[in-house]
């Protein structure tokens, strides 16, 4: 237990501990139930298979389309996870409990965002090798992994905020992709272009602009989400 004195003494440390506590709560709950990760994973694998039949991914088509197919899969699986992680909080009244905690509200945002990011990265870490095997294409490329991380950060930064909004509306889970996709377009465009740049072995000068957009997006939207999260959960 924290003593009140400690709270006033080390606010920064206390803040990061609150963030870690929320992240840890989500990870522990997921470790026991495994409902979120398993549905995200099965869903992603199904999407990859549907891509095969829908686009007839022969050897030639694969190289050009892989980046796009991967990011569509990540984006769809991401909304699934974001929806679920907020719905769980709302349904059982946990969100109100979290809001009562004597911590800065943005700590709740960062805690949820980090756990969402971890779930998304786990799904990606499984999808990438499976995709490599199924389509016989080498996806183990440091550049691609970096783009995957940068893209996921931006996507989750906006997605966590919007999931907190959509879960409080009447239409709920239907609304999240509608709210998220138009705002996530810069991330998706930049991530797809940078990924395919690395896969096709393009020159770095052609990839750097896309990495810059990803970094700018990540920073801007993390900062804005930090600033406006209070308004989203205020009651």
């Amino acid at each position, binding site marked *: 237990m924290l003593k009140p004195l400690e709270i006033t003494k080390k606010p920064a440390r206390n803040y990061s501990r609150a963030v870690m506590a929320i992240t840890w709560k989500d990870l522990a709950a997921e470790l026991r139930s495994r409902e979120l990760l398993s549905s995200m994973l099965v869903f992603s694998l199904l999407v990859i298979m549907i891509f095969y039949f829908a686009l007839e991914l022969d050897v030639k088509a694969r190289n050009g389309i892989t980046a796009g197919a991967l990011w569509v899969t990540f984006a769809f699986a991401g909304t699934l996870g974001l929806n679920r992680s907020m719905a769980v909080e709302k349904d059982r009244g946990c969100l109100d409990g979290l809001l009562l905690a004597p911590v800065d509200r943005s700590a709740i945002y960062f805690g949820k965002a980090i756990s969402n990011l971890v779930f998304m990265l786990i799904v990606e870490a499984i999808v990438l090798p499976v995709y490599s095997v199924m389509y016989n294409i080498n996806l183990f490329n440091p550049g691609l992994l970096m783009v995957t991380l940068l893209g996921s950060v931006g996507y989750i930064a906006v997605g966590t905020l919007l999931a907190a909004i959509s879960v409080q509306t009447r*239409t709920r889970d239907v609304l999240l992709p509608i709210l998220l996709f138009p705002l996530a377009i810069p991330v998706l465009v930049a991530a797809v272009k940078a990924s395919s740049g690395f896969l096709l072995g393009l020159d770095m000068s052609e990839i750097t602009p896309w990495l810059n957009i990803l970094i700018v997006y990540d920073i801007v939207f993390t900062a804005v989400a930090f600033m406006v999260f209070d308004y989203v959960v205020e009651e």
Partner: protein
Amino acid sequence: MSPQSRVLKVLNVISAVLVLAAFLMAMFYAPLEKVMGEVQRVFYFHVATAWVGMLGFIAAAVVSIIYLRTQDLKWDIIGLAAVEISLIFFGITIVLGSIWARPAWGTWWTWEPRLTTAAILEMVYLAYLLLRQGIDDPERRARFGAVYTLLGGLSVPLTFVSIRLFRTIHPVIIGNGGSETMAMTGSMVATMLFSIAAFSVVFVTLFWHRIRLGQFSNKVEYLKMKASLTEFTGTTH
């Protein structure tokens, strides 16, 4: 219910006259464009409506910040008005652009940066309206709406930058947008500026009307709630 103020009534007439004048200028005063022919005349209204859409977009983003700072519901009415006007005018811009693009570029639609960004902006606005529809509590509706317009105001410029980059790295098949390469004579510039000015007045008039409408609908909502409350207490006695 307060009647329209005198200034607003005058503005109604001025807007109508100005739009008519802009139409006549575009049709008869502006010279015939050599390459594109008569269809180029749609350009004057295309630019003007895009300008109004842009004004609405900026107004919506600024107003959303003001709302979050003040938490005063009147700014929510203003923000909604700005979004709706921007939605409609960008819609008109896209349609007018298509009419021009069909003969000029040989296609109704192309994934040109400005066009694509306008289309995505329309999606953001539609999502905003859907979001509002899903919330009953007016105060929460206003807060979420403001947060969403603010996010849209940040993401749409980035969308534009990324799509532009998307097109410049790849070979551009269709010229870099017609208006920049189009050489305009003095009377053409005059017509364009006049229609932009005319539509700016239209923007103010519509904005005013829409804010009034928003105030009325809030009043109706309030009266309905009050009526149902008195009915409720009446039956319990």
